[in-house]
C-alpha cells in the first residue's frame, strides 16, 4: 500500500506513515530547539534568520569481490543557522547534543556576520515575504529500514555472483542503500516547515580485464548506481541480480569491441548519459549564484548571463527543460527548499530559449526576480546554494526504436564513463561506458571507449527529437559545489534523444 504523496498547511498536522516514525526528531522535540535558535538570532540583532534542524540515518551495504561485505548505518543530528545582520550574512552549524547547541550555533552565526561586515563593501537587501508553513513526506510502500538483514545480504550477494559469472570479470561490486531524514525549518518571518524523506537505491559494477585493457559496465547508472525517493520497493524493482549478469557479460564483450575513429555522427543518447549531460551543461549553467559570480573561485561561472531570460537561444525548438521538485519519487523531490521557499514547476528552457534560472532568495533579489526554490544544502551542516532540483528534458513522442529508425545510421550510447566541462559550462567532452553502432535504424555491433564533445548551445541546437514519456527515466545523483565543497542531491530525467552531426571519438 502506498501512502499518498502529501502536504498540508500546518506542521504537525500531517499523519506520518510508519516509515517516517523513527528517531529523536520524529515529532515534538524539534519545535523548542528551532525556537531557541531563532530567538537567539533575532535577539542578537539579526534582521532575518533561518534555522534548519535535521536528523538523518543512512544505511549502506556493499560487497566487493574478494572482500567481506561491509554494512554501515550512519546517523547524524544537527542544525544550521543563517542570519542577516546589517545586510551581511553569517552562518554556523554544529551537531546537536543538547538544547544549548541550538543557541550556540545561532551565536556563532551572529559573530560571523559581524566579522564579515569588516570586509563587505556591499550590503544584502533581502525582500521580506510572508510566512510559509507546511508538511511533506515521501511516499513509501516498504520501509527499507524494516527489511531484514538477510534480505539485503541475499540481493547483494546474488548480484555480485551474477556480475562475476562471466569469465573475464576481475572485479565487481554490488550494493544497496537507504536513507531517511527529518528536516525542520523555521525563520524569523514566521515560516515553520517539516519534511520527512526516505530514499532507497542500489548499484552493481563489473570490471573486466584483458591484455592491457580494462572495461567497466554498471547498472542502473554509473557511479553510485541510482537512488530514488521511495521505499524498498524501488530496490526490488531494480532487479539487481538479473541486471548484474548482463552487466558482467557486456563488460567482457567490450574487451574485444572495436574503437571507432573520430569524426562527426548522428547519435541517440540514452537517458542515463543524457541525465549527466543535462546536469553539467544545463543545470549548472543556469544556477543564478554562479551566473552572478558568487562561485567564480571554485565551481566557476556560466556562459549564460543574468540578462539571458527571453534573449538567449540555448538550443533547438525541441529543447524544453523544466525544474520541478513537485514531481515525486526522486532525490530532487521536496515541498520546500532549504531556505523555505515552496517549490513549483518552472520552465528553464522553452522551445530552446532561456526562460528562468535556478535561483535562491539572495541571487533572485539581485536581478529583481523571485526565487525558483533551488536553494539546497547538504544536510544541516552547510549553507544553501543554488543547486538543481528535478531538472528534466521534457520528452517528445514515439519510441527509441522510432528514433533509431529516424536516425538511420549513427550510434546509440549510454552510461557515463568520464565527464569534463569547462568552468563556463560551454566546452564539454563525455565518454560513455557503452555504445552500439546503428545501421538502417537497428543497433548492431558494440563499440568501446566512445566519446563525444561539443559546445553547449551548439550541441543543444542539434537536438532533433526525444522519445516519448513512456521511455522517460530519472536518475538521482549527488553534485559538488561550494567552499567547503558540499553535496547537493538532485535528479535529472530524459527520454532517449536524437542529436545530429555531433563530434565523436575525441578521446
Amino acid at each position: 500500500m502506498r501512502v499518498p504523496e502529501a502536504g498540508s498547511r500546518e506542521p504537525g498536522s500531517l499523519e506520518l506513515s510508519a516509515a517516517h516514525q523513527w528517531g529523536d526528531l520524529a515529532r515534538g522535540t524539534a519545535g523548542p530547539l528551532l525556537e531557541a535558535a531563532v530567538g537567539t538570532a533575532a535577539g542578537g540583532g539579526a534582521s532575518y534568520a533561518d534555522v534548519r534542524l535535521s536528523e538523518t540515518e543512512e544505511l549502506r551495504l556493499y560487497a566487493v569481490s574478494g572482500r567481506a561485505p561491509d554494512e554501515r548505518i550512519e546517523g547524524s543530528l544537527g542544525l544550521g543557522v543563517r542570519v542577516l545582520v546589517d545586510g551581511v550574512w553569517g552562518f554556523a552549524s554544529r551537531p546537536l547534543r543538547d538544547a544549548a547547541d541550538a543557541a550556540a550555533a545561532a551565536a556563532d552565526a551572529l559573530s560571523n556576520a559581524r566579522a564579515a561586515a569588516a570586509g563587505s563593501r556591499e550590503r544584502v537587501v533581502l525582500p521580506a515575504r510572508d510566512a510559509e508553513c507546511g508538511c511533506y513526506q515521501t511516499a513509501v510502500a516498504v520501509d527499507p529500514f524494516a527489511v531484514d538483514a538477510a534480505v539485503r545480504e541475499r540481493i547483494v550477494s546474488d548480484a555480485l555472483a551474477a556480475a562475476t559469472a562471466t569469465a573475464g570479470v576481475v572485479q565487481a561490486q554490488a550494493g544497496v542503500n537507504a536513507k531517511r531524514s527529518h528536516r525542520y525549518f523555521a525563520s524569523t518571518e514566521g515560516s515553520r516547515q517539516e519534511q520527512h524523506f526516505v530514499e532507497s537505491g542500489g548499484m552493481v559494477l563489473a570490471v573486466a580485464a584483458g591484455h592491457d585493457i580494462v572495461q567497466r559496465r554498471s547498472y542502473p547508472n554509473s557511479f553510485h548506481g541510482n537512488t530514488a525517493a521511495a521505499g524498498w520497493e524501488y530496490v526490488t524493482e531494480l532487479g539487481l541480480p538479473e541486471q548484474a549478469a548482463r552487466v558482467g557479460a557486456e563488460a567482457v564483450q567490450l574487451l574485444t569491441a572495436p574503437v571507432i575513429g573520430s569524426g562527426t555522427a548522428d547519435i541517440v543518447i540514452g537517458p542515463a548519459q543524457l541525465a549527466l549531460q543535462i546536469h553539467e551543461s544545463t543545470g549548472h549553467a543556469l544556477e543564478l549564484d554562479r551566473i552572478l559570480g558568487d562561485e567564480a573561485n571554485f565551481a566557476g561561472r556560466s556562459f549564460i548571463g543574468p540578462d539571458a531570460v527571453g534573449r538567449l537561444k540555448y538550443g533547438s525548438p525541441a529543447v524544453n527543460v523544466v525544474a520541478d521538485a513537485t514531481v515525486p519519487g526522486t532525490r530532487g523531490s521536496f515541498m520546500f527548499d532549504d531556505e523555505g521557499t515552496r517549490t513549483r514547476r518552472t520552465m528553464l528552457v522553452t522551445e530552446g530559449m532561456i526562460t528562468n534560472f535556478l535561483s535562491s532568495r539572495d541571487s533572485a533579489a539581485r536581478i529583481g526576480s523571485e526565487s525558483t526554490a533551488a536553494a539546497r544544502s547538504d544536510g544541516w551542516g552547510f549553507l544553501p546554494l543554488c543547486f538543481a532540483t528535478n531538472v528534466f528534458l521534457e520528452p517528445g513522442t514515439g519510441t527509441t526504436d522510432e528514433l533509431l529508425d529516424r536516425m538511420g545510421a549513427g550510434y546509440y550510447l549510454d552510461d557515463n564513463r568520464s565527464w569534463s566541462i569547462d568552468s563556463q559550462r560551454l566546452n564539454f567532452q563525455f565518454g560513455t561506458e557503452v555504445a552500439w553502432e546503428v545501421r538502417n535504424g537497428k543497433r548492431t555491433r558494440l563499440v568501446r571507449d566512445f566519446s563525444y564533445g561539443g559546445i553547449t548551445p551548439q550541441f543543444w541546437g542539434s537536438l532533433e527529437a526525444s522519445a516519448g514519456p513512456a521511455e522517460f527515466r530519472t536518475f538521482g545523483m549527488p553534485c559538488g559545489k561550494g567552499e567547503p565543497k558540499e553535496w547537493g542531491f538532485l535528479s535529472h530525467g530524459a527520454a532517449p534523444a536524437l542529436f545530429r552531426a555531433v563530434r565523436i571519438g575525441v578521446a
Partner: protein
Amino acid sequence: MPGAWAGQDHALAALEDALKSAEADQAEIFVAARTGEHTRFAGERVHQPQTIVECQVMVRAVAGTASARVAVSSLEAARDAVAAASELARRRDGASGKADTVPHGVAGAATIAGTAGLWHESTLAFDAVARSVLAGQIMDAARSAGASVAGVLTAAVTELAVATSGGQRCYAAATEAGFSLTALAGQASSYAADLGRDASGLGVRERAENAISQAAAAQDVIAVPDGVHDVVFGGLATGELIGFVPDFGFTGPAVAAGIGLVATRPHAVLAPSDITVADDATAGVGLPFPFDCEGTPKRRVELISAGHVGGSVSDLASAAATGGMSTGHAHIARESSPAPEAANLILMPGGASEAELIAGVERGLYIQRLWYNRLVDAEAGTVVGTSRDGCFLIEDGRLTAGLQTGRFTESVLGALARTDGIGSQLITQPVPNVWNGCSSAPAIRVRGFRFGSRQGKD
C-alpha cells in the same frame, strides 16, 4: 577560532568507555571531528562567512563471519553506537550462510609517530575578523587594479581518535589553514591557492596581489592553439595531474584484482629517475597526520619511485587480501564502499625555479589551473580535462598573452615520462571528498602535451 571540538582526554575517555560495552568478537571506534571556519568572498562582499562543526563517531564490530559499522554525530552517543554495531554484526552473522570471505580484524597496539608540526597558534589567530579584513583588502586591491576577485580563506582544526579491542589508542589534533582566490580582469584571470598547517606560511596577501597583477596585465585572452606544446604546469596543475596516479593501479584492491601497474608491470620504468610520486602523511608537507581511521600508523608509500612502478596503498582489509601489512590508508568515502585512499600525495620537488622552467621554453604554454579532470583510461593513464584560470602563452621564455580555456585528453603517465624539469617549490591543494586529503606538487615542464581536439578546433 576555538580549539579542538572534542579534545584528547574527552575523546579517548569516551571511546574507551564505549568500547567496553561492545558485545562482539572485535571492535574499533573512531571519532573524526572538525571545526572549519571559511570566509568566502566575491566581488564586493563577504558573502558566505561560515563556521561548520562536524563530528562523526564510527564503530565497527566483528561477530563471527560478519561485521557492521554504526556511526553517530556526537561522542555522547558513542555507547549507543557500539551497542547498535554489535547487534547488527551479530544479526548479520546469524543471517548469512557459509561465508566465502571473512571480515578483517582490527588494528593492534602500535606506536604512533609524534605530532610535532601539526598544531600552530598562528592558524588559531587567523580568525573570522582577521580573515574578513584580509578579504576586504584583497577585494579593494582588485578594484584598484581594474579587476575583481573571488575566493575563500580557511582556518580549521581537525581531530581523529581511535580505540580498538586490539589495544590501539591514538589521538591527534591538527590545525589547517588555506586559501584560494581567482582574480578576473577583462577576459583574463589568474589563480592562487595553498594549504598547510600553519597560516603564517601562506603568504596570502602577496600571492593575491601577484594574481591580481597577472590578470590585470593580461586583460585579453587568445585561444589555446590546437596541437602539441611544451608546457610548464604550475604546482596546482601538477598536483591535479598526480592526483590520478593512484587510479593507475596503486591501491590494494587493484593489486588484489590483478589490474593496474603494480599488479601487471611491477618495477617497470615509467618516467625519468627524478620523478618520485609518494603518498606521505609523515613528511611534514601539506596536511601531515600520523595515523588512519583504523588506528594504523601512516607509512610513506612511493607509488612511482625514481621513475619506476613502486608500491600500493592499503587498509587492513586489502592488506589481508594481499598478504601484506596496512600502510595506514583506510578511508570511508561518502556513499561509497570503504577502500584505501592515497590522501597525502607529493611529487618530490626538484631544483628549478618556476621562472627557470619557463625560461627553458621557446614557445609553449604555462598552465596554472586545470579543471574537471576525469579518468578516461586507467591502463594508459589517460585523463580528460580543461585548463582554467591563469594560463599564458610562453614566447622566448617569457609569459605573454593570456589563454582561453583549452581542452586536453592526455596521458598523465606520458606527461611524467616527458618531464624534463621539476620545480623546487611545493604548493598544496585540498582533495575534495577525502578526509584530510591533499596533494602537493611543484611546477613541472613537459615536452610535448597536446591541447585541443585531435580532429580540429573545439
